[in-house]
């Protein structure tokens, strides 16, 4: 019994550590005046979420999180920052000001409302996550979930073609 308590305490420490990384990175991503710093905050937050996936025993999703988000999506956003004439002292240098403070109120209220509902209605769940092998995920993709798998590839193709069409638009043709 003491052995299990020890492991459980380690699990809580890992959870707290990853949560801290996630929320600190997210705060940096939201509040930083420089877009590049905000992106670095987002990358930190993505790593924290990957750690949370690991603590949920979803190791394949954690790897895909690092591969897709940190490897692909954040590089795309860095390209967007680079190609959009971002000034060196930060596009958000004026800050969000009073407008941002006013708009934070409904966001804050919504977040508090959902957290309170979560606590009050006591979502019930098992204490120990399930562990499915990656082979089961592959069998799921080729079995019952083939249609979403094919649809997401079509969505990606359409997005890529649309992005190329938009980006190669000639300047004075409209």
């Amino acid at each position, binding site marked *: 019994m003491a052995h299990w308590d020890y492991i459980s305490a380690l699990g809580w420490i890992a959870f707290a550590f990853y949560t801290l990384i996630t929320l600190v990175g*997210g705060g940096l991503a*939201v509040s930083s005046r420089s*877009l590049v710093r905000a992106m670095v905050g987002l990358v930190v937050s993505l790593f924290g979420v990957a750690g949370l996936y690991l603590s949920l025993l979803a190791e394949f999703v954690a790897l895909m999180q690092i591969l897709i988000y940190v490897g692909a999506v954040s590089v*795309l956003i860095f390209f967007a920052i680079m190609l959009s*004439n971002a000034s060196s002292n930060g596009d958000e240098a004026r800050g969000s000001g009073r407008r941002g403070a006013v708009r934070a109120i409904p*966001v804050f209220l919504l977040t508090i409302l959902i957290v309170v509902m979560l606590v009050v209605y006591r979502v*019930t769940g098992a204490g120990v996550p399930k562990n499915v092998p990656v082979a089961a995920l592959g069998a*799921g993709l080729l079995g019952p979930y083939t249609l979403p798998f094919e649809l997401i590839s079509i969505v990606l193709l*359409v997005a890529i073609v649309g992005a190329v069409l938009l980006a190669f638009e000639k300047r004075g043709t409209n």
Partner: protein
Amino acid sequence: MNPLVYYQTVAVLLLGLGFYALVSRRTLIGMLIGVELMLNGAGLSIVAAAQLTPTDAVLGQLGALLVMGLAAAEATLILAIVLVVSKRFGNADADGPRGLKG
């Protein structure tokens, strides 16, 4: 209190952070960063709900992968939109394009 509540709370906090970035940022790229945070919260919520309840865990993990694919497609499109907006207006300010031509 069981672990699911804590994981869902972290997901909700990510949603709130992303939502705040979406409404308070001035540039399109800042808003995109907010959307990515919200999508991460969604993925975390899906995986936590599937791993910690009797639901099929394969369904949850593949759902999170689907969300990641959608996020990649969305980031690609927004990169193109940012390119077009910054070509026409000189910067990627969200207040730049405010008129419709039809």
